[in-house]
């Protein structure tokens, strides 16, 4: 058996059992990060991603990640309708999930009922010994009916399995759940939630806030940043640019470059949000990103590729020759529904990445 990392449950809320609902739900998630769209944006082809996911992808390769049509950051556009749909969907989603669960519970109740009728019938028909003789079962059923009593709003009944008093409406789920009182609490919560959800869908609380909450900025007041021409920038230019943005100016040239680059991606994607976050919040995200990148690099020490190349240059030249003359090759086809149309332009040399 595979041990799942402990946090796996909290990283993804439960999905729909219904396949169609699951598909609808997934269609509102970004194909790159698999989370709900955060500032949905598309390029010329129309495929939609989060602003930050598409920007990061285009910073590596200027093509749509799905259909591989050429795509540029400058041609990115907001998918406003999709974002509105997403907000509504997220409101309806909890309701649908709860309804789905109640529906399933109802179905299992029906099954349970017909099953217990059958068991009574077969018990009374059978002459031989049975684990639970008919008379006992019938007595228990009777007793259960008699012991039914009111407690507050809910009718209580005695569970034929554990003899505890259980809310009648959930007795079958209670038995299904192995007579676990914790499980009972959850079932009761769910049915209460369903009631609340409906009232929120129809009531005034269903309206999305029109004003930004704490940590969000008034939309339409923020400006995007141009991307630096990082290759020609000197350290002092980089430091000035970082200072202008109120960012730290420590570290090597490369660290400063990637910090500014990522800031531009994060900031511009923030401007694309319907409700942009505050500058401080985005700064926090950048700080977190830098920490994560650093710890990931520590985990996987990079081979000193330049050194490697120097030492084995001649070997590699031969290797290039060899590879070039190689014919019987196939590039494994990506199992994407949209096959790559144009042939891959192979790099000129076989070399070591730096």
């Amino acid at each position, binding site marked *: 058996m595979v041990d799942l990392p402990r*946090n796996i449950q909290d990283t993804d809320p439960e999905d729909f059992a219904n396949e169609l609902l699951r598909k609808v739900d997934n269609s509102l998630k970004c194909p790159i990060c698999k989370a709900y769209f955060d500032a949905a944006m598309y390029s010329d082809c129309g495929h939609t991603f989060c602003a930050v*996911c598409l920007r990061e992808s285009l910073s590596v390769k200027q093509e749509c990640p799905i259909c591989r049509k050429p795509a540029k950051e400058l041609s990115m556009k907001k998918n406003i309708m999709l974002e509105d749909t997403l907000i509504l969907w997220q409101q309806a989603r909890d309701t649908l999930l709860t309804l789905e669960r109640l529906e399933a519970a109802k179905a299992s109740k029906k099954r349970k009922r017909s099953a217990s009728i059958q068991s009574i019938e077969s018990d009374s028909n059978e002459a031989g010994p049975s684990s639970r003789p008919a008379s006992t079962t019938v007595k228990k059923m009777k007793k259960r009916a008699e012991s039914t009593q009111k407690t507050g709003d809910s009718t209580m009944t005695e569970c034929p399995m554990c003899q505890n008093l259980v809310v009648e409406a959930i007795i079958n789920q209670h038995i299904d759940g192995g007579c676990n009182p914790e499980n009972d609490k959850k079932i009761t919560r769910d049915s209460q939630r369903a009631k609340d959800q409906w009232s929120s869908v129809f009531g005034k609380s269903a309206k999305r806030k029109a004003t930004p909450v704490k940590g969000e900025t008034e939309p339409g007041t923020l400006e995007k940043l141009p991307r630096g021409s990082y290759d020609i920038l000197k350290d002092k230019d980089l430091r000035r640019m970082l200072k202008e943005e109120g960012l730290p100016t420590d570290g090597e040239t490369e660290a400063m470059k990637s910090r500014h680059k990522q800031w531009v991606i994060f900031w511009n994607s923030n401007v694309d949000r319907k409700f942009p976050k505050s500058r401080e919040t985005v700064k926090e995200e950048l700080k977190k990103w830098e920490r*994560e990148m650093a710890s990931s690099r520590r985990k*996987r020490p990079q081979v000193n590729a330049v050194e490697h190349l120097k030492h084995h240059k001649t070997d590699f030249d031969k290797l290039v020759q060899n*590879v070039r003359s190689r014919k019987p090759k196939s*590039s*494994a086809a990506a199992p994407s529904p949209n096959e790559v149309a144009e042939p891959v332009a192979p790099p000129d040399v076989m070399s070591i990445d730096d």
Partner: protein
Amino acid sequence: MGSIATRRLAKELRELSLECPTGIKILSANDFHTWRLSIEVMGDSLYQGQVFALQFIFDAQYPIASPEVTFVSDEHYKAPIHPHVYSNGHICASILGTEWSPILSVAAVCVTMQSMLASCKKLERPPDNDRYVRHAPKSPKNTRFVYDDDTV
């Protein structure tokens, strides 16, 4: 590990745990850094009855950056003999390099490897195998492979 990487991998792992593509099984996935999956080619192929293991190493930039994927070559598993697979387990496949797309996934890579093996017509190593293996960097991501675009 990046938060997007973690969320994506959690989701992928959840889906793989529920249902793996035919012939693919999770061997180990105890963190979001290294996973191993076994792959078997279904149907008629030169690799009938053989089981291989693929190792995935993810960094914080996954899925924007491709995972490092190699065939495991140790006392339990051997890299398949295939014109695109070096004996050290490095794979010359465009989707692991220049043709990587962030919408691809662990499952997609496994299925692609299956079909790469399934379509193999002759059991042989890449012609430059010995030389490559002698000088190969530890991670194949540090090799810039040249891909022929002939389709099999």
